[in-house]
């Protein structure tokens, strides 16, 4: 079965509205995510790009309500299938985590638990959400070999789906016996074990070699195509987004700077920050011997300038930039936060 990729009639799966997540620090309250709103439809692939520290990971953690203490969501709403996630009980939240929304993290080396077999870690996802029902019989609560066997068949299935060879053997290995690429595949298998509707992928390829990166992206592509899993792909690599995502959000200092269809954003970037990010992308077509990083330093969230947070690094800065800079919708439906429009 193939799913309609970017169908505007597909129902909204995830909706963020004015989401704001703060961290109290010694130097004042830091807004890691600052008034972020977007919608994600069923089966959609959305990219979130931005330099490190722009609040991408915190956005994903906020959706699952896993923001590390002392951070917290201070404003806004997260709606999943129309239901308010932020007001759910701890138990309802646990049912969503892993079963409806799964997450893949940046560094596979540190994300698998070193003490447990890889197969057991994949099986745990199934167990938590009771994907395979218990057998009959009064002992089945403590001893249920049939169920375990059924679970392992699913574990092996998930492992071969993500391209781990000889799953029966590799399930009985420990994480440190896997290469980085295999570890990330195992983590994707963990995420997909319960067939979630939404996959949050936080820089899933950043820690990997370039060739492995391409394989992992192809794998995510396949999952999206075959299962219709909606994917939020967080990355600082615009090239990846160009290749993979229907829609793209550009974030800076916790704020949305630009949002639109990926092709439009890449071919005709509106925001000076997006233009800067694109310029630092090494291109294969045009022969260039120089890459241009966005000038200036990543902003200090505890000490942002008034108005547009990007203004100190912007080449097109004008006086208005220090005033209030609202998000504007352009004629083609794109959103841009810049006084130039």
């Amino acid at each position, binding site marked *: 079965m193939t799913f309609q990729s970017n169908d505007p009639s597909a129902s909204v799966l995830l909706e963020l509205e004015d989401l704001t997540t703060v961290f109290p620090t010694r130097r004042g309250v830091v807004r890691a995510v600052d008034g972020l709103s977007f919608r994600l439809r069923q089966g959609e692939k959305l990219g979130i790009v931005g330099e490190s520290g722009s609040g991408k990971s915190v956005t994903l953690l906020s959706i699952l309500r896993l923001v*590390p203490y002392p951070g917290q969501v201070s404003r806004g709403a997260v709606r999943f299938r129309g239901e308010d996630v932020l007001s759910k009980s701890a138990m309802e939240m646990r049912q*969503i985590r892993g079963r409806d929304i*799964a997450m893949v993290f940046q560094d596979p080396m*540190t994300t*698998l*638990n070193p003490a447990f077999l890889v197969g057991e870690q994949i099986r745990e996802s199934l167990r938590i959400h009771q994907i395979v029902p218990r057998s009959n019989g009064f002992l089945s609560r403590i001893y249920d070999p049939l169920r375990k066997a059924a679970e392992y068949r699913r574990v092996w299935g998930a492992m071969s789906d993500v391209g781990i060879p000889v799953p029966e053997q590799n399930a009985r290995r420990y994480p440190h016996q896997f290469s980085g690429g295999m570890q990330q595949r195992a*983590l994707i298998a963990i995420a997909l074990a319960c067939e979630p509707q939404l996959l949050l992928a936080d820089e899933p390829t950043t820690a990997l070699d370039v060739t492995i990166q391409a394989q992992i992206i192809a794998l995510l592509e396949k999952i999206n195509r075959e299962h219709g899993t909606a994917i939020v792909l967080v990355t600082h690599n615009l090239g990846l987004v160009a290749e993979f995502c229907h829609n793209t959000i550009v974030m800076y200092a916790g704020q949305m700077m630009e949002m639109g269809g990926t092709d439009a954003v890449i071919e005709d970037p509106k925001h000076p920050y997006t233009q800067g990010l694109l310029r630092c992308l090494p291109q294969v077509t045009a022969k260039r011997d120089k890459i241009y990083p966005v000038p200036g330093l990543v902003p200090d969230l505890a000490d942002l300038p008034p108005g547009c947070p990007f203004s100190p690094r912007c080449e097109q800065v004008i006086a208005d930039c220090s005033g209030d800079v609202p998000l504007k919708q352009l004629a083609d439906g794109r959103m841009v936060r810049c006084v130039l429009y």
Partner: protein
Amino acid sequence: MRAVKILERVLITIPIMFGVAVVVFFFMRLTPGDPVDIMMGQAGAVSTGEIEQLRREFDLDKPLYMQLWLFLTKAVQGDLGYSYTQKRPVNELIFDRLPATIELAGGALFFSLVIAIPIGIISAVRQKSLVDQFSMAGAFLGTSMPSFWLGIILILLFAVRLGWLPVQGRITYGINLEYVTGFYVLDSLLGRNWPALVSSVKHLVLPSVSLGASVAAIVARVLRSSMVEILRQDYVTLARAKGNREFLVVMKHALRNALIPTVTVVGLQVGSLLGGNMIVESVFSWPGLGRLVVKAIFERDFPLVQGAVMIYAFTFVIANLIVDVLYTYLNPKITL
């Protein structure tokens, strides 16, 4: 595979024990004071003839290398010699006393783990809470409080003032207990002797607490800091993102890894529980090996000291072996 590796480790103890034997032999003889002189000093005036005879009897008239040779060849056959002062085989003396020492060390270890593991976990999970601050202050006290002082305070409070627990010894005088292993708690269980069980456990409480307090403090601190470190790891966040209950996140995913450094520390402490309990044994008149050895050192009872030190070393090596095996179960990256 594991069995072969364990056997290898057991065989390595042989050269270790040999080294210990040689070192303790020379150290004893380097200490000033002659065993016969000390013995005679206590006995009063004696003739030089009698002194010579004693020297011959103890082989002290032979050259050092001969003495060492005799000691080692006998030790290999399991004979640790004859005590100068007690006029009994060292083996017998040690095995009379060793169970008491091991039982006390076991009690202290049990007490310290029962206290330290929950405290370490809770203070890491509730970092900077009142519970955490209170326990860490307690742990600081625990490491800085001398065990004899704690022992005396405990005796004054729980034995003298409240009368809940006995002051000294291993079991109430007059209770009959059939000795099988020499561990009173175990023996009374084996014989289904409930009065003996109650009495021996009661006797064990205060010495165990005095001896185990500092170990509890150390273990609680190590466990807390490794838990704090591990709770920040990505795989703990993943455990939550999978939908695990917080209890399992902490007790399965975090604790399992935090125990790795903790087990190492516990292993080192077992040595101090076995070999560092002379003071607690004295405070509680606990008939263990520690008091015997102290006395033997003062009397320059070479065979007894040598034998006891070798037994200490042996139990220490075995305790470490157990820790290492446990370690491989906890940490799959390590093979023996």
